[in-house]
């Protein structure tokens, strides 16, 4: 099930909320949350719920065993088992076809492709269960002894299928005990409505232009249109994913959980390293804590460590070489930025921002085109196209002009420009606070109207 659907908004969510809030006691509340999370997952993936349960039971048991044998060598073996099983599941269900086809290509064999369909959300929940086992081993928090509470952590529907990748330490206080805090619920509702708008209005409309320029008119693109197409994809992917994260964070707040932020105005970044700190932050935190720092972090082999992290980040996104290339692209620029740290420090902000955005938008082409032949043509179109601008291009530029203004307004980091004590900001915040209920209702009506006409709109990150 997706958040941006009529069935979720008008049936699943109200039923869940009512049953959740009328249930007395934390145990029953957690049970309701778990039950509806499983229904939410089963709506799209009835079979793969078995895999979700298997992973959860395994890591829950391993957590208990690590805790029981803490300090003894055997606990290391339990951790190793968790890492091996989790990564093997990911390799099997996400990368089996990729490895088989590459094996066939290199050795000239012809093993049939397993053809396993990707269980939705596997990349997210596998990382969550894995992080739980590692953190228990590192003795960062006490082991969870209630399977119900553990399952709530893994399968909580707000963040189950597309993140943010929530770490157990972030919700440890809320899982066992949380109170109904109305100011948090209201801020959760505000956040959810904002996320819904970002997805249904901005991302879905950008997707129309993405398909037009990057699929339908792909072979006849002029350079301007090619850049326009990948810029639209940059808009689509940001508002799609950050919209989902906003909805997840908002729903989490309604249920009393405080998830960490996943985005912080990524398109305001001043460098690639800065972008990394602003985009899909929960994944960045995962790789930082479990790969980058254990490899030596900044202390030794930093360039190697950066490259490893980025190659893995790329590969995490999908079983295809273009994602690896995308990761390598970022890795190389991160390293170059480290080398050129001093001269870059003296360059004006506008230059740094332009250079960063150009690279980010260009990298979207690598991200979009799984097929290398198409990518090659696209790069040709971007830099040296023989095609002339089509009739429809100018009419698209003008026909979507209000839309583009809205997108820019949403990308500007207002909260970074105006300090929390700035008078203008305080005034705006006050106006928003008192008008939020009306704004939210209008946004829900608008999104309902748009959803009535657009029944199929999955999130891009569902396939990762």
């Amino acid at each position, binding site marked *: 099930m997706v958040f941006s659907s009529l069935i979720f908004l*008008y049936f699943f969510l109200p039923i869940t909320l009512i049953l959740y809030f009328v249930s007395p006691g934390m145990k029953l509340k957690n049970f309701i949350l778990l039950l509806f999370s499983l229904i939410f997952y089963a709506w799209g993936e009835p079979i793969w719920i078995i895999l979700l349960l298997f992973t959860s039971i395994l890591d829950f048991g391993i957590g208990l065993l690590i805790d029981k044998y803490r300090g003894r060598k055997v606990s290391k073996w339990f951790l190793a088992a968790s890492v091996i099983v989790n990564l093997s599941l990911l390799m099997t269900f996400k990368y089996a076809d990729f490895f088989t086809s590459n094996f066939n290509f290199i050795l000239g064999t012809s093993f049939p492709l397993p053809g396993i369909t990707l269980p939705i959300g596997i990349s997210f929940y596998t990382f969550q269960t894995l992080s739980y086992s590692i953190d228990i081993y590192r003795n960062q928090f006490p082991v969870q002894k209630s399977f119900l509470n553990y399952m709530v952590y893994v399968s909580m529907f707000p963040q189950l299928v597309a993140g943010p990748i929530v770490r157990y330490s972030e919700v440890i206080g809320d899982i066992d005990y949380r109170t109904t805090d109305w100011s948090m619920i209201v801020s959760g509702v505000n956040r959810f409505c904002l996320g819904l708008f970002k997805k249904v209005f901005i991302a879905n409309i950008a997707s129309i232009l993405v398909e037009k320029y990057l699929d339908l008119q792909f072979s006849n693109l002029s350079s301007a249109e090619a850049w326009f197409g990948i810029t639209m994809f940059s808009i689509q992917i940001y508002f799609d994913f950050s919209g989902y994260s906003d909805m997840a964070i908002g729903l989490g707040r309604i249920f009393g959980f405080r998830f960490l932020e996943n985005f912080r105005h990524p398109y305001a970044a001043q460098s690639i390293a800065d972008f990394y700190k602003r985009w899909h932050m929960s994944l960045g935190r995962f790789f930082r804590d479990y790969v980058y720092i254990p490899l030596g972090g900044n202390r030794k082999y930093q360039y190697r460590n950066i490259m490893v992290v980025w190659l893995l980040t790329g590969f995490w996104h999908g079983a295809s070489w273009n994602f690896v290339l995308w990761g390598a692209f970022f890795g190389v620029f991160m390293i170059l930025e480290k080398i050129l740290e001093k001269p870059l420090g003296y360059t004006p902000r506008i230059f740094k921002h332009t250079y960063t955005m150009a690279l980010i938008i260009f990298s979207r082409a690598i991200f979009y085109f799984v097929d290398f032949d198409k990518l090659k043509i696209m790069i040709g179109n971007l830099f040296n196209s023989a095609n002339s601008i089509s009739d429809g291009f100018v009419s698209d530029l003008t026909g979507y002009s209000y839309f583009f203004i809205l997108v820019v307004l949403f990308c500007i980091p207002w909260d970074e420009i105006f300090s929390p004590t700035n008078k203008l900001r305080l005034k705006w915040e006050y106006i928003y606070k008192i008008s939020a209920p009306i704004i939210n209702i209008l946004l829900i009506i608008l999104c309902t109207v748009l959803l009535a006409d657009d029944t199929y709109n999955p999130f891009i990150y569902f396939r990762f």
Partner: protein
Amino acid sequence: MKKLPAFLILFLILFVSSVFIINKKELVSKSEKRTLATWPEFSINDYTSGLYFSNISLYINDHFPLRSNMVDIAQKIRYHLGFHLDKEERIVVITTPKKEKNLKANLDTVNRKFDDDLKAAYSGSMLIINGRVYPQYAGSPAMGKPFAEMLNEYATKLSGVCNVYSCVAPLSSAFIPMEKYKKYNSGAQNTLNAIRSSLKAPAKFCDVFSALDKHFGELMYFGTDHHWNGKGAYYAYTSFCESAGIQPIPIESMKYERRRPFLGSLYDLTIDPEVAQHPDTLELFIPRVETKAVRYNATSLSYSAPTKVFGGSNNYIAFMSGDAPLIKITTNVKNGRRAAVVKNSMGNAFSVYLISHYEEIWVVDFRYSGHNLMDIILERGINDLIFSVGVYAAMSHGTINMMRNLAKPHAPALSGISVRKTTADTTNNKSISGRDSSLIKKTFTDSTNNK
């Protein structure tokens, strides 16, 4: 007071959900002219594949309160996202048919799929001018060559047996009846000219484009459907007559019929509120010839069903009563001449005019037919073989190969003809007619032609 904002939204949502539950569920959407989704029946297979749940989602979407109004408003919202340079024209991009499932439900019952080429070719930019939809042409001249080569193969093989004609129909966007859009002509015209220049004798070219272009400004195509109307197809027929050296029947001498308005396939693709306000009217020009017609299934001549050259529908399906793998028409024109038409849906409106000139016409839909075209030509003594297809079918390697494969001796399934070949070689020419004579008993005269 703190709780009010959250409760307001919850009440709004619950109110809408309650209206949904209480509302009487319609079976058909009158405005969209389609059947609405029904509550799915549970089955283990559907459950495990996820189909059961997705059908429930469809049910909720289809029966959502005020859905059709919301669809209209959504279209208007998307349209008003900026400044529009020209008020009367706009371009919409169709990526996937918005109501694919419903389009299927709309089609007539006998073996008719939604045109494969429609999805492939017409999912793209559509120009909407004054409520009429014009699919933009995206082909190049080079794309005409493979089709011409395929025709050359037929013509060479059938040299001395029958004439082979290319009768390719351009898209409606080539004839937008406003001078300023004449620029859209050139694309389609260049591809058709490339076909002409690549065709080698004895294959013959029908200049459909010029025939239609002479009537530039007339409404020859539908505005909400991707086909041509009776008049456009008639002009194409005159171009065939010119190539074949026969005298076309004057359009004035035919029986004229108009049917009640309809919204066609391009409306289904765009679901555009402006287009909905401009429905099409089918115009039929019916030659005064008596006909009997039967349709066969994809592989066998052993089962047939009666059909009509002019069906009773109010939309394009009226021509040949829609697509069928193979249709045989017999007429009261006793001139001994026989034709075979290889076609996709564009050929339906064209084929109906041929009844004035042949006593027997075999209409083969290359997309669905598994019959061996060469057997039909040789054994029925076909004089003219006409390829009447839309320009997109003439540009795609996939569809061209389908047309080519009709001539293969081991076409997918030829039970009707191949069984006869192995068991009754000596009967030769009469074998099909012998089989048919028993089948024709089931057929009846097409009454619409007699009146």
